[in-house]
């Protein structure tokens, strides 16, 4: 048992699994297997088509010499980030970080989805406490902050905005914008 490097490997394994499993020690039943056919797994159950009503997108670049390091960081931490979002907050989901697949700029996009506008406030209580999650999140965000050309966009499901006048009732600037569509530029 236990030198530090072995222990750190076990901790890394737990971390990569996202939600730590309940500890279990199960009897190992050995069996002799014949050379059978291929086991087909059923496709995962189909889920709703929408990622969520509200989507936040971080766009940022990472210098080429840090790309692999960042990808390793993601491999190690994404399951953990996703599990923390699901477990510690209501209606907040981490949806992954994607890398451009072409030969141009190396750009990343990190997506978060929210079940409602109120869900965006869930971060408040989580970020006030020190935890591994906050540490990892700050590391992820640090890649975004280092890019002077970074961007953050908020999207919402278009199909939920089918009556723009009603939606603009309490938003004067939106009212002005809608009115402006009928004004001819001089």
């Amino acid at each position, binding site marked *: 048992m236990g030198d530090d490097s072995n*222990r750190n490997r076990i901790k890394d*394994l737990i971390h990569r699994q996202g939600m*730590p499993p*309940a*500890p279990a020690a199960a009897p190992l039943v050995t069996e002799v297997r014949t050379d059978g056919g291929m086991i087909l797994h059923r496709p995962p159950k189909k889920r709703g088509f929408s990622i969520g009503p509200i989507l936040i997108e971080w766009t940022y670049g990472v210098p080429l010499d840090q790309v692999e390091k960042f990808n390793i960081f993601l491999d190690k931490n994404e399951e953990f980030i996703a599990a923390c979002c699901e477990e510690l907050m209501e209606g907040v989901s981490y949806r992954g970080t994607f890398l451009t697949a072409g030969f141009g700029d190396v750009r990343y996009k990190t997506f978060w989805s929210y079940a409602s506008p109120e869900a965006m406030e869930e971060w408040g209580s989580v970020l006030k406490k020190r*935890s591994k999650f906050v540490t990892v999140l700050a590391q992820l965000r640090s890649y975004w902050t280092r890019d002077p050309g970074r961007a953050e966009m908020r999207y919402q499901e278009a199909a939920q905005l089918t009556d723009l006048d009603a939606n603009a009732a309490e938003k004067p600037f939106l009212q002005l914008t809608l009115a402006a569509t009928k004004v001819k530029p001089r």
Partner: protein
Amino acid sequence: MEVCIVFTPDNPNLFTLNSTAWLVFDLCDGRSWRRLEKAYYDAVEPLRSPEEARDELIGVVSDLERKGIIERDRVARMSKPRPTTRGRNKGAGSNGG
């Protein structure tokens, strides 16, 4: 491989430990219960509260002991319900990776 396989020669059996049980097994190196509890919580926070981590730990330590994978220090038996664990593991061998 993401499990640890343990052999208990006194009562010949093979067991697989999942990642968290494996960590507990690894941490059972004679340390005090308080240090064990802290080390385990550090590994599973913030997805477990301190109380959840403690309950889990009590459960798995008892289970590992019952299966002959670890054994409790005699002195620690007097300090229930917070036992000290000792990783002598009754000669159990492990192979994980």
